[in-house]
């Protein structure tokens, strides 16, 4: 017996829909086996893991709405960064340092309340968001420049810059930007009023969630219906053809980095303006890295990234719920998440390829 792949002439539409379903089914089966071995009721465990975060949809219990809010808040930065990275990766521009651009955005935007703690007007909000995006763009401009000017691998420069900017943030909040009233703990003044993102009603869903949705739709439009989108696609899939068509590779590198960096910066300032509420040494639990997975799970489609962000957010929240209600350790949550990703990636193969199991006889016959 042998596993053989056969390339399909075009993407299989049926499989595009089916593959995530198969992946989830496989994860559920594996999960059930794992949980049974750990002495848990597999159905209950799977319920907690995947359905608990979204149970409001059928319980309609206002108490359960909280989880949905949290889901939106958790998914927003992932979707925002993932959408930008999708475009970037489609163009074969490998920005791995979104985490750093996120931090840079938070630092740049957070500078406003640090230096003008009294400034309270709607303009403050706008200025902070703009500075956030600009900060992310500025940080992403470094690998873009190094790539274009010196041909330095953007994968590594962008990654190294993550550590550098995190240390800069660390230095700032422990030193010059420290809150004088904060007992010398490493944090800036707390952000208040217009220095924080407005929320919808009395929920915790903030403006950043809206940004994520808008960005996903806008980028989907950009990629689907504009010349720029076409250019990026061509440069990504057939660089030679792109060059003949007169598309600039350098231009695409700049565009992709500034776009994905700007969105990461926006996500960063959004986090410090809402969930964190001030600058401190750690402002993100690795959103910039997780967003890479989000981009791929979403098949490098901005709207797909939005969906993928929600799936990942569910697995995070489900992992937390499992820790609390089942007493399962955080490690299991992570292993489980890894397995889910593996299945989704494996099943993606079905879209582009036909998988055949050939018996030895057929293999020989074909040869």
């Amino acid at each position: 017996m042998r596993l053989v792949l056969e390339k399909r002439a075009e993407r299989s539409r049926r499989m595009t829909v089916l593959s995530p379903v198969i992946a989830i089914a496989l994860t559920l089966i594996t999960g059930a086996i794992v949980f049974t071995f750990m002495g848990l009721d597999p159905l209950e465990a799977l319920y907690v893991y995947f359905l608990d975060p979204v149970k409001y949809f059928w319980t309609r219990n206002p108490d359960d709405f909280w989880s949905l809010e949290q889901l939106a808040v958790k998914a927003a930065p992932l979707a925002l960064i993932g959408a930008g990275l999708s475009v970037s990766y489609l163009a074969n521009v490998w920005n791995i340092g979104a985490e750093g651009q996120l931090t840079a955005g938070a630092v740049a935007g957070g500078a406003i309340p640090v230096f003008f703690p009294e400034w309270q007007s709607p303009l403050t909000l706008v200025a902070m968001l703009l500075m956030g995006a600009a900060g992310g763009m500025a940080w992403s401009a470094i690998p873009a420049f190094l790539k274009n000017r010196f041909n330095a691998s953007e994968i590594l420069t962008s990654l190294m810059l993550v550590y550098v900017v995190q240390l800069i943030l660390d230095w700032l909040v422990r030193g010059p930007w420290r809150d004088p009233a904060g007992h010398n703990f490493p944090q800036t003044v707390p952000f208040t009023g217009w220095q924080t993102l407005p929320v919808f009603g009395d929920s915790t869903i903030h403006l950043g969630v809206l940004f994520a949705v808008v960005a996903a739709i806008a980028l989907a439009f950009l990629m689907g219906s504009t010349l720029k989108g076409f250019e990026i696609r061509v440069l990504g899939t057939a660089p030679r053809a792109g060059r003949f068509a007169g598309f600039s590779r350098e231009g695409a590198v700049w565009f992709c980095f500034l776009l994905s960096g700007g969105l990461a910066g926006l996500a960063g300032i959004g986090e410090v303006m809402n969930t964190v509420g001030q600058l401190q040494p750690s402002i993100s639990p690795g959103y910039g890295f997780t967003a890479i997975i989000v981009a791929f799970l979403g098949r490098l489609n901005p709207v797909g990234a939005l969906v993928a962000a929600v799936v990942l957010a569910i697995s995070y929240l489900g992992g937390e719920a499992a820790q609390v209600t089942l007493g399962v350790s955080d490690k299991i949550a992570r292993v489980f998440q890894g397995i889910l990703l593996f299945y989704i990636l494996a099943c993606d193969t079905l879209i582009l390829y036909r998988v055949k199991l050939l018996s030895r006889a057929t293999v020989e016959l074909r040869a």
Partner: protein
Amino acid sequence: MNELLSVILTIITASTPLLLAAIGELVVERSGVLNLGVEGMMAIGAVCGFGAALATGSPLIGVVAAIAAGAALSMLFGFMTLILVSNQVATGLALTLLGLGLAGLVGEGYVGQPGVKLGKIDLPVLTDIPFIGPIVFGEDILVYAALALMLAVAYVLFRTKMGLIIRAVGDSHQSAHALGYGVVPVRYACVVFGGGCAGLAGGYLSLAYTPQWIENMTAGRGWISLALVVFGSWLPWRVAIGAYLFGTVMILGFSLQAIGAGIPSQLLSSLPYIVTIVALVVISGNRALTRANTPACLGQPFVPDR
């Protein structure tokens, strides 16, 4: 003199795990595969090596277990990316997640237990030579293994037919396939070799560097190894220089602090990364050199057509 000696010895220990993992990844990338899961494979190697050594009392069995664990995890990666042609970047990242999680799970019972240390060798007379002795003849065997591995990889890649095939597969899988070489088996073998090296690097952490297991003890060293491969423009001896340079910058940062130089520690901590970026720029700026050594098919999927 004593101080210099201790600094050099410290640098060697700090650089060895980076070198081990980077040399493995270099072979993987030379064959055209990008495995970003080094950190995860290191973690699993560290915990399995620690556990095996603890169970048997033999650090050497620990070393073997570490290699096996890293290799086993890389087989999963190989299956995903080579057989099912899933995206290498995403699969590598997922492997990191899985590896770190699994390692934490396996290691739950090992926290707070003293490990079995892989001792330094002690040759009569030779190790006692002042200054030179401890550096050249008084390391643990994995330090020598790392250097030997580097030389062996350099020899095999550039002086043997096997190396030629590996490089051919990495540079143009279509031509290699047309010439009758099995692209997938070659790549699979390289991936497993890289996994074994990453596992060994992890084992070095939990057996020789700091004989203990705690979660996240790899602390980003897998990522640095990945950077070192590009830093060394896919040439083994340059990767070795990179690893030692990185270790040197890091240790010198500590030395400066301990002297009381008053430089912000964050600046010193970020120096290795900045140095890597600068070196990357200098090396990549030389286009002829990079083009000659970058595996042209790096990260590209290959499906043999029939």
